[in-house]
């Protein structure tokens, strides 16, 4: 047992820190710290800086120009980025489509798409979820019918994150109706400019436009945009879903969140003393900090295990459940911490002055709390994850 990073890992961490310190624009970091929404320009700028430094393709295989980071390195990068309030790497191209193309795409697809992902020329979004499907992904209904050298796609996708910025979408579509629902699904790459595609915003409970519905009406997609084999898309999608996810516990976000919560607790005054000295508040905060100390080690154990070749299995689900709850508790405590300042509800979509009248630290706490109710729902709800855990340990 050794809870310390190796010398190489320390060196890597220092390099990442120094990169973040010099390359992350102050304004973007401040937006991150205050949980304010980023613009597309913010994302683009950060994407290009990461690419220039070689961090964007950090976990890609070397043969595709990546650095083949270990799981620990990935973890270090994600944690340091979160602590510096850097934007997360928009994952749809770099972390989701790219591994699928690298594993199952044709040489032509790899050569064409991978560089465009790195350069930022393509902004991908994900067309998996459909209305009424929820965690039952395989029940998808969007159909792609082959006509000559095209597929004709009809249907609807939803929860398409940042789809409003995307020029490409990778989709799971139904190309066959026989057998189990998992069979007959194909993996298609679609240009968002193709006629028949309509993107409609979904406004979330915190008033933010973050996700979208994408409607397909007789959309013509060239057959060369099929990834792998027809009707085998489920395999590729599952590859992605089980693809090792070091960030699933969100420890970096939790740590950054706890830091900002502590700052709030020192600033907010209650009965003439900082809120941090209120015993009930201090107890809530301490319990969360204690949990986070354990959570961080739980996460590292799994990350280190992945590097040692252990399949994460039920651990990923445990990290997802406990990590999401912990982050939500931190957001919940921030909402409590700002006291009555939680009441002015300022959001980009609701009318009225967008300026929150309270202290800066109160401006987004309520919105973040509301927005992060999602993290126990998306990516396989915590209920689905508990099912996976018991299946693994009960074997029933």
């Amino acid at each position, binding site marked *: 047992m050794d809870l310390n990073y190796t010398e190489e890992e320390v060196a890597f961490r220092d390099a990442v820190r120094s990169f973040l310190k010099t390359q992350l624009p102050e304004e973007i970091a401040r937006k991150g710290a205050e949980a304010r929404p980023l613009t597309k320009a913010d994302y683009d700028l950060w994407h290009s800086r990461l690419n220039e430094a070689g961090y964007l393709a950090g976990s890609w295989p070397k043969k595709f120009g990546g650095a083949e980071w270990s799981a620990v390195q990935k973890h270090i990068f994600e944690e340091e980025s979160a602590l510096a309030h850097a934007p997360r790497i928009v994952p749809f191209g770099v972390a989701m489509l790219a591994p699928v193309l690298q594993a199952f795409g044709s040489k032509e697809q790899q050569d064409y798409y991978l560089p465009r992902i790195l350069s930022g020329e393509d902004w991908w979004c994900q067309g998996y*979820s459909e209305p*009424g*499907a*929820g*965690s*039952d992904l395989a*029940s998808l209904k969007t159909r792609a019918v082959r006509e000559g050298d095209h597929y004709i796609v009809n249907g609807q996708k*939803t*929860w398409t994150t940042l789809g409003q910025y995307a020029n490409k979408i990778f989709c799971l579509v139904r190309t066959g109706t026989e057998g189990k629902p998992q069979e007959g699904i194909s993996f298609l790459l679609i240009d968002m400019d193709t006629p028949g595609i309509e993107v409609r915003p*979904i*406004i*979330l*409970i915190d*008033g933010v436009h973050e996700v979208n519905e994408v409607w397909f009406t007789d959309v013509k997609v060239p057959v060369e945009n099929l990834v792998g084999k027809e009707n085998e898309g489920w395999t590729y999608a599952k590859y992605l879903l089980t693809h090792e996810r070091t960030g699933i516990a969100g420890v970096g976000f939790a740590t950054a969140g706890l830091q900002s919560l502590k700052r709030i607790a020192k600033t*907010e*005054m*209650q*009965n003439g003393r900082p809120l941090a000295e*209120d015993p*009930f*508040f201090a107890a809530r905060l301490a319990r969360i900090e204690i949990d986070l100390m354990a959570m961080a080690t739980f996460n590292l154990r799994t990350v280190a295990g992945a590097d040692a070749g252990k399949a994460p299995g039920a651990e990923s689900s445990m990290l997802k459940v406990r990590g999401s709850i912990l982050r939500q508790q931190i957001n919940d405590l921030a*909402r*409590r911490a700002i*006291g*009555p300042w*939680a*009441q*002015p*509800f*300022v*959001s980009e*979509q*609701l*009318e*009225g*002055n967008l*300026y*929150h*009248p*309270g202290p800066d630290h109160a401006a987004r706490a*309520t919105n973040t*709390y*509301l927005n992060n*109710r*999602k993290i*126990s*729902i*998306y990516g396989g*709800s*915590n*209920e689905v994850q*508990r099912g996976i855990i018991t299946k693994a340990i009960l074997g029933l």
Partner: protein
Amino acid sequence: MDFNHTEERRMLADSLRRSLERGADWAALAELGVLGALFTEDEGGFGGQGFDIAVVFEELGRAGASAPVLEAGLAGGLLADAGRADLVEQVIAGTLKVTLAHSEPGLRYDLGPITTSAASGTVTGRKSFVTNADGADRLVVSALEDGAVALFLVDPKSEGVSLHTTPALMGGTISEVTLDRAPAERLGLAETLETRLAAATLAVCADALGAMETAKAMTLDYLRTRKQFGVPIGKFQALQHRMADVAIEIEMARSAVINLAGHLSDAAPTRDRHVSATKNLTARAAHLVAEEAIQMHGGIAMTEEYALSDISRRLFAVDHRFGDEDWHLARFIRLSA
């Protein structure tokens, strides 16, 4: 012992519920007697007891209504205490909208010490968290006068008054009010402020109870109709058992609201012990119910378009009005010692 509401209160609740379903406006609410129910006969109304408040606000919460009824009861009640029957009559008729401007930045949930001051017919200071001030005809403003807290009537349109207004988490609006030598009519000392705030806290709890019932009904409906893996998700036992716990906590909150309503006229220490007990429990229940309603719905509950988002924000707001869970827990402990 009798746990049934009087015939009159049941009728008021029923007609209020139906009217709200039809989208009753302010005039319709006044017409129905919703505002009169908040005042005693002596004050010109026909209610004013804890259970009157409880039935009215449960329905408002159930419907997710954002009409300034709480403000009418709170600020209007202070007008009644100041002997201003003329103004109370207009409040009950719905022709005068009033709201209380008491809290100040940095006080969190405490009632004082305030710094807004009164001098020669004007008030100066900053008031925070003033609900539904933007449509109000008059503000009831607290200010220091010779070291004592007194109440003043201020027209929000007069010179020296400026409002910064945003939407409120619980619905309606919330304003920061800046008063710079604003013309003010003295109402009297603020001796009944805590009494009226006790009633307003009951209103918030009853409102939360109604909103919890709506959240429960929507969730049950969703569990019955929404299918996943081929069966209604309400068939999943893990959700069933959590739903059972949600239902239980709502009954606990209902019981706590009854307790406070029944003790609202008690002497201050007993009353306030019940205020803090009920507010603490209701805030916990509201938090649980809203989080569980969202989680059991899944993605759709995250959308502004779906009606639960209003209801769950309203439930999260409960904790931030008139003292949060921990503030009331500490107060309950002090009052129990």
